[in-house]
């Protein structure tokens, strides 16, 4: 009788401790804390996404759609701008350096797919900035600043 009482008290203590220590959402979807999914999903974003950019910058979208960069998303070059999208007045995106940015994709490299347009910058432009001849949003020749 006494042993049974000890066992019962032990079981109750275990259940109480378990109730305290195991979160309620544990086991909701499987052997893990179900709330963790919502916690991970609640993280803020850094890249706004091109749909967000296009709501304001429809002029750039129009220009882009005519050229070879139609499918290059805004933040591929301009970087993460969710903060700018939230507060366009006080958070301004940094000016981009065409020479660095264009070379990142278009500098010749033997491992790049053959059909991808590549140049050796020194031979191609002799050091002149890319945007002198190419407008970055629609980079056909002679679309740049020098007209």
């Amino acid at each position, binding site marked *: 009788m006494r042993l049974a009482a000890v066992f019962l008290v032990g079981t109750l203590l275990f259940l*109480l401790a378990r109730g305290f220590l195991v979160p309620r*959402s544990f086991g909701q979807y499987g052997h*893990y804390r179900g709330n963790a999914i919502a916690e991970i*999903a609640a993280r803020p974003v850094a*890249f706004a996404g*091109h749909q967000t950019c296009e709501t304001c910058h429809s002029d750039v979208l129009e220009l882009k759609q005519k050229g070879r960069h139609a499918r290059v998303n805004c933040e591929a070059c301009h970087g993460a701008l969710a903060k700018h999208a939230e507060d366009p007045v006080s958070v301004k995106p940094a000016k981009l350096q065409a020479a660095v940015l264009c070379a990142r994709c278009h500098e010749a490299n033997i491992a790049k797919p053959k059909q991808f347009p590549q140049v050796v910058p020194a031979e191609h432009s002799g050091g002149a900035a890319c945007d002198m001849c190419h407008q970055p949003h629609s980079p056909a020749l002679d679309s740049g600043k020098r007209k």
Partner: protein
Amino acid sequence: MNITRRRLLVLLPAAAIAWKHILAGTPEASPNYKLTEHWWGMLVDVTKCIGCGNCVRACQTENDVPDGYYRTWVERYHLEGWAFQNPKVDSPDGGKNGFPPGNQSGGKNFFVPKLCNHCVESPCTQVCPVGATFVTPDGVVLIDQKYCLGCRYCVQACPYGCRFIHPQKETAEKCTLCYHRITKGLTTACCESCPTGARQLADLKDPKDPIHEFLRTHSIQVLKPYMATNSKVFYNGLDGSVR
């Protein structure tokens, strides 16, 4: 305050109920998102990758990945002659700053972006002793940072080398397939910033997703199919030498 035994016996269950409610406080992130309506994966088109490193940088910015660690990275393969069993692979700084042009000539050269394969039969989730890593009902392998002990079992178990221990948090980390973005209707940071469309997020439960047409009409592979992990990162144009 004088606490009698009787009072304590009344207070304890009340405290237990209150504590339960504190623990159950679920942050509601995307109320319209239904876990059961999606099955996420990714398409990587090796024939389009230019090794610019945009994906690696974007991932680092989006997810606060510490320097020297990578949730996604790009490898450059160089094959010469008959040496397809022994390819030369390099990935300077995970390909974050692109790849130097080099003076290699001839042979076969190409880039392979890599990330967590979000396996259906994921070895990493099977070895976790505390239920800190799991496959969500929408097919993404995630880590509960509050539960992870940092025991490193999963880091060893991943056949693709996709996990690392965060140097400050001392917990396991890996690609979340930008879970905080895809549940809000956005694409992942790497897909968003890929200039050539070499990476595309795929929802295998969405009948309108172009992935279905692509899988039907192309010769698709996954990494290490012999591991039977049922990987959901599908590669187009993958060379046999890629491991």
